[in-house]
């Protein structure tokens, strides 16, 4: 049985991150001459960029420009029509397992099961990530979900569901985060908190690729914006 009255102390850091072996500025992901074709339409062509440890890459562009498609390519969920991807200077296909183990991808869909409670969803993702020792009450309280830990997620509001989904970022030890519109449905305070946490991750040597239609409001050291044009 779980304790009914978890001791919540919001000052204490919830997770002690084991720092991944980082050479700051090391090249993590290199895209060379990527192109993506959907429905016989070229979304983008000859796209090359590099993501280094400590970088945050914001993929911008109008609706339908191909941001989500690019992110799915980077996450290894689909293969580029042309061009190559390298992870730590090796072709992605050779090191796909290493890469996957170091990657946290959260897509348009939240990745939480609606019938399960927030706690149970977190336990699932912990196990998938191989992270032990749950301290999820504190984590959820920190995310503003105190008291909602053990009701099925379909009874949470849109933004609360999103918070549960993003909670994964707080215990993952992966270096590369790929996030498709993480700010959807979040209120302003949650967005601010999330961005603060992004900063921490970058300072630890992590890398983030994300899309969002809202502006990133904090001061990032190495923010790159990749503007995709909507091509017909």
């Amino acid at each position, binding site marked *: 049985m779980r304790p*009914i*009255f978890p001791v*919540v102390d*919001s000052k204490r850091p919830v997770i002690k991150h084991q720092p991944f072996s980082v050479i700051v500025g090391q090249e993590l992901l290199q895209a060379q001459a990527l192109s993506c074709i959907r429905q016989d339409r070229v979304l983008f062509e000859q796209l090359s960029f590099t993501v280094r440890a400590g970088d945050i890459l914001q993929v911008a562009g109008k609706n339908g420009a191909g941001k989500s498609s690019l992110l799915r390519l980077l996450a290894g969920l689909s293969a580029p029509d042309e061009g190559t991807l390298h992870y730590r200077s090796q072709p992605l296909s050779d090191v796909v397992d290493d890469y996957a183990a170091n990657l946290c991808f959260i897509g348009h869909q939240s990745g939480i099961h609606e019938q399960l409670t927030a706690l149970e969803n977190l336990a699932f993702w912990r196990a998938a990530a191989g992270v032990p020792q749950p301290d999820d009450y504190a984590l959820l*309280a920190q995310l503003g979900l*105190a*008291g909602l830990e053990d009701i099925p997620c379909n009874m949470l509001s849109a933004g609360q569901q999103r918070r549960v989904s993003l909670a994964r970022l707080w215990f993952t030890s992966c270096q590369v985060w790929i996030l498709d519109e993480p700010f959807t449905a979040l209120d302003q305070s949650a967005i601010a908190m999330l961005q603060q946490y992004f900063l921490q991750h970058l300072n630890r040597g992590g890398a983030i690729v994300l899309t969002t239609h809202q502006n990133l409001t904090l001061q990032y050291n190495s923010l790159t914006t990749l503007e995709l044009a909507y091509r017909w």
Partner: protein
Amino acid sequence: MHFQSWAEFWAMGGYGLFVWLSFGTTYFLLLALLCYSQLQQKQFKRQLAAKLAREQRVKQYQEQSD
């Protein structure tokens, strides 16, 4: 009293198995339903009390963090 002895009573004229099977399951099911319903009520009352106390704590926690 129709039966002469207890043994005869339990035997039920050779139909003991069927008679006691029916009466047994009937009483068992009725009792189970009764206990289950009562248990449900008790359990809910306990849950509610716990929930109220928890609410208190959440309020406290929110006040602290404000």
